[in-house]
């Protein structure tokens, strides 16, 4: 439970990672929600029966083969703990929930941050779900080095 001392997950505390082949096939949901809390919107939103949760307090487990990458779960997760991952044509993509001003725009260059808030590089916004379509939680897809998709968990807009 040392993640509760730090406030972020270390490599050995991460949930199992989907394979490179799976990541290259289509989008996949990666849920970083290791603690037992009473919460279940993700499983309720999943149409593909891809999320397993024994009871409302159990942490969710994703079956990467069943997950279709439809992004219903990331829209509703109150913990903003779901990230949609993808590798395509040698490039990595992370889709994350974003709730700050200014809203990111497609084509914009952004600073990539890891779980500790440290800068790990720069990426480009390739797709945005506008905030008004999802009760003010925008979804932002950022293109980056494929090696970074299990590290990057936040972005910062470059001002000016």
């Amino acid at each position, binding site marked *: 439970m040392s993640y509760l001392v730090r406030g972020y997950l270390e490599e050995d505390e991460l949930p199992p990672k989907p394979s490179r082949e799976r990541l290259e096939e289509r989008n996949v949901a990666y849920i970083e929600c290791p603690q037992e*809390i009473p919460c*279940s919107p993700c499983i309720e939103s999943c149409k593909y029966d891809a999320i397993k949760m024994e009871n409302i307090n159990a942490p969710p487990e994703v079956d990467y083969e069943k997950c279709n990458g439809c992004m219903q779960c990331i829209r509703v997760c109150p913990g903003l703990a779901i990230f949609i991952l993808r590798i395509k044509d040698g490039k990595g993509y992370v889709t994350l929930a974003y709730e700050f001003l200014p809203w990111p725009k497609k084509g914009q260059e952004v600073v990539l941050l890891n779980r500790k808030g440290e800068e790990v590089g720069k990426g480009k916004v390739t797709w945005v779900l506008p905030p008004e379509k999802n009760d003010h939680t925008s979804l932002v897809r950022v293109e980056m080095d494929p090696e970074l998709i299990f590290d990057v968990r936040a972005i910062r807009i470059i001002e000016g």
Partner: protein
Amino acid sequence: MRLEDHPIVEFKRGKEVTIYFNGKPIKAYEGETVASALYAAGVRTFSRSFRFHRPRGFFCAIGKCSSCLMEVDGIPNIRVCKVYVKDGMQVRTQNSFPNADNDLLGVLDSIIDRFYPHGSHYKKFNRPRILREFITKRVRGFAGTGNPPKKVFEGEASFEEIETDLAVVGGGPAGMSAAIFAAKAGARVILMDENPFLGGQLVKQTHRFFGSGRHRAGTRGIRIATILADEIKELKNIDVRFETKVFGIYDGIVGAVEKEKKLLRIKPKKIVVATGAYERTLIFENNDLPGVYGAGGVQTLMNVYGIKPGNKGLIVGSGNVGLILTYQLMQAGVKVAAIVEAMPRIGGYFVHAAKVRRLGVPIYTSYTIQRAIGKKKVEAAEIVKLDENWCPVKGSEKRIECDFICIAIGLSPTHELLYQAGCEMKFVPELGGLVPVRNKYGETTVEGVYVAGDVAGIEEATAAMMEGRIAGIDAAIKIGYGGDEALKIREEVVRDLKEFREGPFGARIVAGLQKVTMEEGGA
């Protein structure tokens, strides 16, 4: 200080009005409280403390702390966080000369305190008796709260007698749910709240809620407030009384004052008390300095009235409230210097901590605040590491630059009304303090008086809504409404709530509830 743009909330400000602060005009907007209008104008000292004339300012924002007492239109000791601005309103600081910002009697705190420290009026000059009496008189001359009123009530007072099935005290998540579920079963309900709006503290919860979809998880607290208020509007058998303060329950009769002028004598068959909770404070040097706020107070200021509390904050406590507040401050464009947590681990949900940690906010576990630094307002804070025996480690002090400090160390139930009604109370630390003994449907030891929400034990809004539903529907059933369908719904919610509490976060609540839940039936 006023926020124009916000990622989640759209601030709809009313007509621009002018209020006067110690005679000086201040711009305000209709619908705003006096406290928030003053805050937005940069006023930090609202009055002076009654004995040592220390600066007093904004703290809880929901009328529970007495830190913001001022003179409004000639009437002293008004909680300005509960009074809404009106054009031409005259607001004055009290217990000070010439004003609270530059109070001559402030010498009592800054100079005399060195020779006659706080608390010494209990110890010094006790003997001989004649000296004690002399000194006591002099000291009392300096003390006191406010001046005599310059005006008396001029409106017309009236009286109304109401007979109904269910009286609900408090229009927050628990009270609203109780009213809705009782009304749906067929009961006539009167729902009273001291605010001019329903929703309680939901109105400042801009984040999405946890729980199950059936209990509105994934929906923002502010939307839940609207959804419930709309549902209440639809139900014709709910009579909502805004700005109504319930002051007592006397043998099943509820006494209340509506809009400061109408006395209500309500004879319900059952009563649900859902009065919520108030924020706790923490002991540290200078903890009364303006700039030290309750976490919920800051949420009200920022998310309800759209006013920034400052430029950079320090958060004390890493429970869900502290973590969520940190995120909300950042959403409003306010920097957070750090979160300190006395426990060796984060108290709230990990996912909330991860949300702010990945934006670079440091979380210091095993740290606490040692003192607030500043003369008339917070200019910095000093934090210190705690060893395994919770003792400060010498030499580990760190200065944190900040202009406000949020205390997010928990809440205490607003239990006074239950106590007055004669309910058997117990002090249960797991539930946050004094709570009533009750059965599994929330009925206390006083027959027909139910309890629901934070006043029954500090938990969170999802559980409060479930408790409200259970209390409301059980009250309706006992009166004779609803039939088998109502019984089914009641048992369903009881089951959902039990499941909700089955995890480690619920374990503490369950342990607390075991100490106050009666086996069968109730009174």
